[in-house]
C-alpha cells in the first residue's frame, strides 16, 4: 500500500498541456515521459523538463526504469541537436537538464552527439546553464573528454543504488565501481565542474549501505547528492521494498550535509533534475 505522501498536486493543467504540445511539435523525448515521472505536473507546470537525447530506446534494461529497451543499430537523428536547441529557446529555459539513453551500439556511446547537443543549446541560448546527466559510456575516457569539452556547467551520473543491490537492480553492463569511476574521472578532467549523483531508496538497502554509498560518492568528489524514493514504474519492474517517510529523508539530508556534500536534495519525490536550477544558483553564488 502506497503511503499518503506520494501525492502530487496538479494545479496548472493548461501549462502542462502546452509543454506537451511544444515537446511533441519538436519531436523531443523527455525522461519525464519515459520514466512516467510523478513530477510531470509540477515540473512541466513550471515549464521545465529533462530532455532525453539519442532517441528513446535504451540498449540496457535496468529493473527500476521504464524506458524502452532495444538495439537502435547505430542510428542517430542528426536533426535532434537543433530541435532541442529550438525548443529550449522557445521555452525560454535558463537551466537545461539533458540526459540520454545508453547507446552501447555506438562506438563512442553517443558522446559526439552529446557534445553536439550541448553546443547547439549553448549557441541558441548563450545564457542558459546546462546540466548533463550522462551514461557511463562503458568507461571510455575519451567519450567523457568529448562531452566535457562541450562545456556543460554540471555533470551528473547516477549511482542509483547501493553496492550490494547494483547487480540485481541495474543492467549487467552497469556497475557500482564503473559509476564511481565516471564521477571521479569527470572531476579529474574538469575540477571546476559541479558533479551530481542520485540514489533511489526503498529498494531493500540498509541504512549502513546507504551511508557507505554516500561515503563512496564523496570520495569520488561528488558535490550534489540527490536522494529519492524508488517508485515502481510498472508491474514487471523491481517491487518497492519500503517507503521511507519524509522525516527519514530529512534526517538523511542532514547526515549527508554533515558528511560533506555541498548540496543535498532529499525527499520522497526528489529526482536528479528536481530543484536543479535552485541548487546550482545556491552553489554558484555561495
Amino acid at each position: 500500500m502506497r503511503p499518503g505522501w506520494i501525492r502530487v498536486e496538479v494545479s496548472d493543467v493548461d501549462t502542462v498541456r502546452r509543454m506537451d504540445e511544444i515537446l511533441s511539435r519538436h519531436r523531443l523525448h523527455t525522461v519525464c515521459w519515459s520514466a512516467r515521472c510523478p513530477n510531470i505536473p509540477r515540473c512541466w507546470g513550471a515549464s521545465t523538463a529533462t530532455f532525453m537525447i539519442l532517441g528513446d530506446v535504451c540498449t540496457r534494461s535496468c529493473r527500476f526504469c521504464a524506458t524502452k529497451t532495444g538495439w537502435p543499430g547505430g542510428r542517430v537523428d542528426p536533426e535532434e541537436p537543433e530541435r532541442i536547441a529550438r525548443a529550449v529557446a522557445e521555452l525560454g529555459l535558463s537551466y537545461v537538464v539533458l540526459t540520454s539513453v545508453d547507446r552501447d551500439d555506438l562506438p563512442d556511446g553517443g558522446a559526439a552527439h552529446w557534445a553536439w547537443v550541448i553546443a547547439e543549446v549553448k549557441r541558441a541560448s548563450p545564457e542558459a546553464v546546462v546540466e548533463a546527466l550522462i551514461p557511463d559510456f562503458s568507461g571510455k575516457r575519451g567519450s567523457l573528454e568529448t562531452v566535457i569539452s562541450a562545456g556543460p556547467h554540471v555533470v551528473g551520473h547516477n549511482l542509483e543504488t547501493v553496492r550490494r543491490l547494483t547487480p540485481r537492480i541495474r543492467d549487467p553492463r552497469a556497475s557500482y565501481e564503473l559509476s564511481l569511476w565516471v564521477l571521479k574521472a569527470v572531476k579529474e578532467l574538469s575540477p571546476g565542474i559541479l558533479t551530481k549523483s542520485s540514489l533511489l531508496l526503498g529498494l531493500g538497502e540498509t541504512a549502513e549501505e546507504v551511508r557507505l554509498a554516500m561515503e563512496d560518492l564523496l570520495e569520488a568528489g561528488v558535490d550534489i547528492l540527490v536522494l529519492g524514493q524508488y517508485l515502481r514504474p510498472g508491474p514487471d519492474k523491481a517491487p518497492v521494498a519500503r517507503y521511507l517517510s519524509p522525516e527519514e529523508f530529512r534526517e538523511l539530508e542532514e547526515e549527508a550535509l554533515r558528511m560533506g556534500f555541498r548540496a543535498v536534495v532529499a525527499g520522497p519525490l526528489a529526482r536528479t533534475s528536481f530543484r536543479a536550477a535552485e541548487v546550482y544558483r545556491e552553489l554558484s553564488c555561495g
Partner: protein
Amino acid sequence: MGRRKEVELADIVVPPLGDVQEVRVVRWLRDVGDEVEAGEAVAEVEAEKATFVIEAPVKGKLFAILVPEGRTAAPGEVIGKIAEKGDAE
C-alpha cells in the same frame, strides 16, 4: 436590460502524465452541485507511481462527474465538468 446569463462549462482534465496509459479515479472530493473554488482539490486519481490531486480549473459548481470512482481514464481525458456562471453584461 439584463441579458441572459450564460453557463460556461469548464473541463476537469487528467493531465499528461508521461508514458502512462490509464489512471484510476480513486476519489471525488466534491459532489455534483457543490460550489468549488479555483484551485480547490476536486478529485484524486492514481497511477502506478503516485496519486495525483486534480484541482478545479475555475470557480463554479461541480456540474458533472463523467468518470466515477473506481473507473479508469486516460491522460488527457475529461473526467468532470464545472459550471462557471458568466454574466454577459
